[in-house]
């Protein structure tokens, strides 16, 4: 008869314990798998206003770079074509996927140091996906991402030495620099899911294999900021949307 | 502080110079300066290095081991930015400290006239109690580096009447030959000790100094205080974390009196060793010894003594050991001293006139010590207590009562630091102290009990 209340207290505490879900990363498993993905969202990102002239990059500090670019190169912070199509914008699903988990792809993404510039200027990868860093130049570079939500590292890379990196957490986007060549700049966007794209020369993008539903699509640009819109797509529907970035005052 | 000096002067003016006293002998300028109670907590260093007071001080002004190491390194952190060239040109290493307070002093056996104003009415012993607001003297303190590995300190202290004294004044050559075991200090300075009277946490007239550092037996002419700032040169060395320290000093035989020379030199040696006890902290034991001489008479011209020509020099010594014990938030300081003065010094007789010695005269000896306990609740609150005693083991004149001059002092208090920043300091201080000295009541020869209570704001900027 003694301490009859004890088991109830313990069980009560146990219930609270599980309810809090305190073991880190112990997410609930997804509910029933969504219907077959066949929907897509595509479109174009445009720049409105006068396209600012890129600045000139003088590469004479490193003779090996100057050899490849005798007249120098230009900055890539705002790259747009004649129709205002904005390149290097990361377009991605920022909401609407619930708690779905996605497998990490086996194939690696690639970023190249070529002509003493990063190619591509913006690369999007999956969390824990291998990112191959290639030095295709005759000079030594150093690869130095400066993340807020991932590990920061800084590695010297002589010509031809293979290097790989992975980023464990979602972050949009990680600035990357080379300290040896201070004009070099790129961005790595890391995603937990596969629904993203980086706009190409004419500003166009396509994100496919979506299940029907309501999503928030966000567009991110390194200089012009972020903008988003909400869409609803039905089964096998392809929705076309447009993002517009305006010129910043004073730029 | 200043009040203690005033009290002593009042006693003397009552014409009881022949009665043997053992309260602080304020005969020399050096002793007077110790009554002004300057203490060191130096916001100038906090400004230079962007560190808080609590980094170097257990509870300012008491140093912790990091602060003691900083001091032993010549007020240098050894991070490559100690030389003055690294400071802003507007930085000047100066600080001020002062204390406005309210206090109450009481002495239970003072010779007073039976009828106030009428000396012919006869005298009785009565209790005299005074109280009121007051201010301490002003500490002006400047110290730092002249150059990498050349440090200095200058302290012109003002007593509460505004009169200035040169208390500390030295240049120090640090890390000679690239070794932290060789540091040479020349000038006027406090003797090297880890129990620094200048950094003591007590402020009252009764409890704010160490009796053992100033004790002189009744009738003894030796003018010396272990806590007085001496004139001379000191060689000091320490290990990289300051756990092992030694120092050797050669001092003028005149208790640090400025503007006067002496005919002999004194020597002081000190050694201490720290060790860690698991779960408790850093413990230290130290041993020290001061051996000096004092003249018993001077050459004269027309009957007037010629300064610096002391003759008939006889010796005295102060030796002992101490320990600093840390047990978590508690820390204890234990201290022992053995004092010994030559028979001529002890009886105030010229060494060339031994016939003037009383029958059976001997060199007086005494033993003393204290236990001081602190509880540092956090860097902004510290509780304090101290018990100190000095006991004569042999009187200079065997006719004197055996324990005449023995003293026992109890002190309790606390300090609360409402602000703790890297620029200035403020402490609220409350303290009570009570001293019993044996046989020194002026008329009856009974025990004299004095007490002090103080509360005030100690500020430092």
């Amino acid at each position, binding site marked *: 008869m003694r*301490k009859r209340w*004890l*088991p109830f207290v*313990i*069980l009560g505490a*146990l219930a609270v*314990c*599980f309810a809090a879900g*305190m*073991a*880190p990363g112990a997410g609930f498993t997804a509910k029933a798998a969504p219907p077959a993905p066949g929907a897509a969202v595509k479109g174009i990102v445009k720049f409105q206003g006068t396209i600012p002239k890129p600045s000139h990059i003088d590469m004479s*500090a*490193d003779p090996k770079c100057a050899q490849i670019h005798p007249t120098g190169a230009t900055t890539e912070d705002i790259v747009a074509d004649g129709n205002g199509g904005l390149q290097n914008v990361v377009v991605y699903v920022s909401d609407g996927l619930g708690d779905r988990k996605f497998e990490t792809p086996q194939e690696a993404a690639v970023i190249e140091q070529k002509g003493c510039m990063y190619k591509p200027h913006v690369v999007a990868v999956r969390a824990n996906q291998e990112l191959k860093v290639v030095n295709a130049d005759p*000079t*030594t*570079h*150093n690869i*130095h991402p*400066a993340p807020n939500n991932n*590990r*920061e*590292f*800084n*590695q*010297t*890379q*002589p010509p031809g*030495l293979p*290097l790989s990196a992975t980023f464990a957490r979602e972050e949009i986007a990680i600035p990357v620099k080379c*300290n*040896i060549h*201070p004009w070099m700049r790129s961005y790595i966007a890391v995603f937990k899911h596969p629904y993203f794209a980086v706009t190409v020369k004419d500003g166009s993008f396509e994100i496919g294999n979506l299940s029907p539903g309501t999503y928030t699509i966000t567009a991110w640009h390194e200089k012009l900021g972020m903008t988003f819109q909400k869409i609803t797509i039905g089964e096998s529907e392809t929705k076309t949307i447009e993002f517009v970035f305006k010129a910043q005052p004073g730029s | 502080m200043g009040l203690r000096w005033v009290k002593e002067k009042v006693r003397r003016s009552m014409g009881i110079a022949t009665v043997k006293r053992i309260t602080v002998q304020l005969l020399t300028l050096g002793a007077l300066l110790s009554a002004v109670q300057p203490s060191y907590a130096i916001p100038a260093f906090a400004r230079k*290095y*962007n*560190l*808080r007071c*609590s*980094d170097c001080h257990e509870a300012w002004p008491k140093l912790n*081991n*990091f602060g*003691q*190491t900083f001091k032993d390194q010549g007020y240098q*952190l*050894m*991070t*490559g*930015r100690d030389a003055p060239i690294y400071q802003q040109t507007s930085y000047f290493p100066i600080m001020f400290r002062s204390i406005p307070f309210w206090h109450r002093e009481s002495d239970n056996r003072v010779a007073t006239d039976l009828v106030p104003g009428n000396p012919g009415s006869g005298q009785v012993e009565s209790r005299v109690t005074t109280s009121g607001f007051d201010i301490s003297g002003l500490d002006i303190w400047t110290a730092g580096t002249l150059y990498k590995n050349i440090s200095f300190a200058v302290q012109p202290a003002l007593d509460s009447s505004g009169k200035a004294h040169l208390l500390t004044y030295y240049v120090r050559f640090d890390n000679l030959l*690239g070794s932290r075991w060789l540091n040479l200090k020349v000038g006027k300075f406090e003797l090297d000790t880890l129990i620094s009277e200048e950094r003591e946490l007590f402020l009252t007239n009764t409890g704010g100094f160490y009796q053992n550092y100033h004790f002189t037996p009744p009738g003894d002419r030796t003018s010396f205080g272990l806590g007085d700032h001496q004139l001379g040169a000191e060689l000091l060395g320490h290990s*990289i*974390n*300051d756990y092992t320290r030694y120092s050797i000093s050669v001092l003028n035989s005149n208790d640090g009196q400025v503007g006067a020379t002496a005919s002999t030199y004194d020597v002081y040696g000190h050694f201490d060793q720290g060790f*860690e006890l*698991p*779960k408790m*902290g*850093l413990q230290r034991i130290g041993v020290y010894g001061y051996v000096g001489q004092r003249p018993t008479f001077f050459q004269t011209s027309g009957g007037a003594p010629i300064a610096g020509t002391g003759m008939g020099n006889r010796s005295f010594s102060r030796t002992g050991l101490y320990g600093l014990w840390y047990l978590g938030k508690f820390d204890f300081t234990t201290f022992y001293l053995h004092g010994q003065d030559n028979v001529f010094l002890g009886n105030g007789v010229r060494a060339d006139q031994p016939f003037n010695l009383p029958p059976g005269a001997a060199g007086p000896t005494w033993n003393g010590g204290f236990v001081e306990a602190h509880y540092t609740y*956090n*860097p902004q609150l510290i509780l304090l207590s101290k018990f100190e005693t000095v006991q004569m083991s042999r009187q200079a004149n065997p006719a004197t009562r055996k324990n005449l001059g023995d003293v026992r002092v109890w002190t309790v208090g606390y300090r609360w630091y409402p602000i703790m*920043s*890297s620029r200035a300091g403020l402490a609220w201080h409350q303290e009570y102290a009570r001293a019993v000295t044996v046989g020194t009541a002026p008329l009856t020869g009974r025990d004299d009990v004095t007490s002090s209570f103080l509360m005030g704001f100690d500020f430092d900027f």
Partner: protein
Amino acid sequence: MMNGSRIALVLLMSCGIPSFSQESAIGNLTGHAKSGKALYRRYCITCHGAHGDGAGENAPHLDPKPRDFTRSTFKCRSTPSGTLPTDSDLYDTISRGVYNSGMPPWRPLTRQDRADLVAYIKTFSPRFHEEPPGTPLLIPPEPPASPESVQRGAELFQNMNCWSCHGKEGRGNGPSALTLTDSKGYPIVPFDLTSGMHFKCGDSSRGAFRDLITGLDGTPMPSFTDALKPEQVWDLVHFIESLQSAGTREASQAKAEPNVK
């Protein structure tokens, strides 16, 4: 206790409530974050801030800025770039201080105090919970500093583009030098290799070797561990040492810090 209670109690204990008490292990010392917190409040808070983010009251007056522990990026490590330092790395940095900065050598604190501080500092970033420290990189024995080794080091200094920051003579005035910023965006200068000054993370040839292979995370100084073989790194160390004027080099070698206690 009744059977039901016993089972419930066992289930409760297997809940796996994560322990938020941090500990550190340095040699045979165990440090405790709880004790470290009181020490941090006394010694560290004024620069590193109450939240360990390097935004203490004195931070605006300091250059370089105090370390932001929440980013878990540390300069002085024995582990590869991008990985966490070991407890001993943090302990050594606390003891040695960081030369030419506002970080004093805290060696006068007891060993236990320093171990406790390491444990507390680790609580500022969740990374210390989530991943183990990197595996310390090995420093092989140093081969003799022959003129050939110095010459090979000179070639490496050229090919590895060290001169772009440190300058052709190592004086810290290379073409990229004025563009450099640390990872928080504050300007930072490359080390003047000719100055004979102590390195930030400790002296001696081994210290220089270690800096080269681990890189100083949070600064533009990269890691060479993938790019160079160990003997090449020693060549580079010998060349760097030859840049210091003979007098200061010997003096700084002689002052190489003793084994940190």
